[in-house]
């Protein structure tokens, strides 16, 4: 799903000074914070689990705690990606849609069971326990070496003030306030402090990377989880491929039928009319003229039908100008007031453009038909290799993908973009407004030429 391999370290480059001196220690402190929170978290999880046997409240508490645990683990994954360059994929088993939608206590219980039976939940828990030790240890070095180096210099200069204020007069193995021959030993803190500063500056980013790798050990997918994810992926691909083949076959049948009943039939009629006119032209020129006029009309109608047919296969504006202008053209043709904002590279992959176009077209048709809306907003943008589309109307809401049937409506859109690994989210409370979001992975054609 992601373009990164799971749990891999990104290409390493030399850290900048800003990263060495500023980001590494700050990240170290943040990761210490994460470790400390983990210590609290695993105790909370354990407590709520133990409360299941003693009091029923544990049953209500545990799902919430597990959600927090998962959220924390996902935060750690994200930080590992952003700070350490270690990309960690989420290895959780998906919750089936029907189970996710099940209401009431039974549904909650079954979802809890599904969560608990996911081995990754246990690995997350183990990570929370160990991270409060291992993670904190690694992070502490990154966080403190530079500061300890600075402290070494400060104490070397101002030890009388500091020790009189009651502070420890030892810096590592150096007793700064020792009197006698070795009075000047306090300056000995300088090389040691300098060593800490240099070591901190050089090891800081490396330690943060190490922390990321440690995170990947338990939060990354196991070989088994990876295999499961792959089988799920294969199953999904098989399903969407079947959908794609079905859709295409249906589309071809429709085109064949339209041609057969439309343009083809009109051409036959035209031929017959012209034949009859030819026979009549000498004896009854007036009748022949009428037949020829009829033939001309039939040719105009055949053209209109062919035009509509082509528009349904590949709309001209989409071919000419790409998705942005094509959606603007859709907005103009809609009976509703439609605002369109577009933030797209010149052209996207043609197949994705077409799928997105027909999805938006279907959405606007749906809004016009069912939503009782007056105003629609369509936003299109492309970021991080994904095309995103949102369509918001001010109608009465209550739309859902599950409710619509057959190839039409929202379910049809979901199936259609599913072929491209696209996903759809519908938020439509009764009373409105309705917001439909589509997300389709897709490279822009300009970016494509530069990378391949």
């Amino acid at each position: 799903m992601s373009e990164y391999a799971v749990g891999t370290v990104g290409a390493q480059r030399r850290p900048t000074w800003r990263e060495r001196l500023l980001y590494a220690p700050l990240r170290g402190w943040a990761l210490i914070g994460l470790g400390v929170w983990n210590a609290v978290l695993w105790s909370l999880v354990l407590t709520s689990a133990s409360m299941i046997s003693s009091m029923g409240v544990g049953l209500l508490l545990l799902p919430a705690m597990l959600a927090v645990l998962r959220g924390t683990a996902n935060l750690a994954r994200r930080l590992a990606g952003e700070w350490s360059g270690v990309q960690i994929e989420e290895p959780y088993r998906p919750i089936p849609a029907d189970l996710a939608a099940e209401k009431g206590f039974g549904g909650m219980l079954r979802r809890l069971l599904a969560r608990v039976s996911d081995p990754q939940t246990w690995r997350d828990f183990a990570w929370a326990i160990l991270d409060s030790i291992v993670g904190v240890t690694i992070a502490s070095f990154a966080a403190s070496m530079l500061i300890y180096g600075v402290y070494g210099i400060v104490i070397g200069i101002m030890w009388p003030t500091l020790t009189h204020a009651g502070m420890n007069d030892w810096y590592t193995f150096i007793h700064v306030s020792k009197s006698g021959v070795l009075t000047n030993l306090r300056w000995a803190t300088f090389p040691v402090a300098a060593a800490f500063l240099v070591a901190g500056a050089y090891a800081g980013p490396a330690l943060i990377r190490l922390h990321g790798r440690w995170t990947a050990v338990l939060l990354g997918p196991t070989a088994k989880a990876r295999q499961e994810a792959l089988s799920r992926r294969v199953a999904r691909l098989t399903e969407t491929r079947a959908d794609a083949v079905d859709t295409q076959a249906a589309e071809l049948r429709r085109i064949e039928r339209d041609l057969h009943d439309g343009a083809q039939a009109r051409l036959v009629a035209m031929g017959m009319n012209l034949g009859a006119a030819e026979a009549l032209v000498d004896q009854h020129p007036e009748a022949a003229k009428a037949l020829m006029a009829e033939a001309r009309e039939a040719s105009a109608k055949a053209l209109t039908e062919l035009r509509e047919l082509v528009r349904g296969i590949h709309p001209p504006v989409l071919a000419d100008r790409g998705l942005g202008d094509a959606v603007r053209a859709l907005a103009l043709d809609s009976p509703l007031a439609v605002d369109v904002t577009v933030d797209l590279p010149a052209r996207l992959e043609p197949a994705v453009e077409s799928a997105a176009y027909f999805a938006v077209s279907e959405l606007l048709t749906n809004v016009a038909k069912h939503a009782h809306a007056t105003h629609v907003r369509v936003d299109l943008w492309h970021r991080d290799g994904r095309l995103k589309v949102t369509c918001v109307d001010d109608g009465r809401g209550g739309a859902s993908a599950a409710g619509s049937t057959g190839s039409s409506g929202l379910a049809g859109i979901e199936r259609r973009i599913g072929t491209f690994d696209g996903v759809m989210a519908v938020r439509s409370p009764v009373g409105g407004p309705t917001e439909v979001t589509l997300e389709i992975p897709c490279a822009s054609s300009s970016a494509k030429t530069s990378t391949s």
Partner: protein
Amino acid sequence: MRVVLGEDLYLLREGLARLLTAHDCEVVAAVGDGPALLDAMLEHRPDVAVVDVRMPPTFTDEGLRAALAARKHVPAMPVLVLSQYVEQLYARELLADGAGAVGYLLKDRVFDAVQFVDAVRRVAGGGTAMDPEVIAKLLVHGSAREPLGTLTPRELEVLGLMAEGRSNAAIAAKLVVTERAVAKHTSNIFAKLDLPPSDDDNRRVLAVLAYLNR
């Protein structure tokens, strides 16, 4: 009347040239791709250019782009755009400069030589010739809005014909009524849409199109 013709299909190009020549037009250049069309338009400065939207080299909206580019150099150079499809978006782009002297018709309209040549002349004379299909879509799009909803069916009909670019006389002939009746309808329409009345046909049409395009 001097005409530049831009159409990539040989048969259609020859057909159009013959049709125009038969109606007292002089085809000064007949070209088959976008860049050549732009060059020809700027070189010959014709009384009107008849242009196909889809042409080489990209086979997208080459002709439309060439026409818009030419009008940027020579404001209000008369252009009649022909296409297998009419798109509101393209109609808007042609009308955007508010200078008039544009036409946008389906290729089928060539079937009716008299009407087609009439449209060519209208555009050459600084008028407009919008395809009934474009106007129908504009009216559908605007029908939800308040003032348009207050027009009577007859007034809507007149509005549609007016938006296509027809004069009062032509509208009267088409609807089989007197010119005075049409004039009465148009003044009603202008009052209801709150548009400034104008005696100039072209300015009147542009006002209506601008209104519908809003």
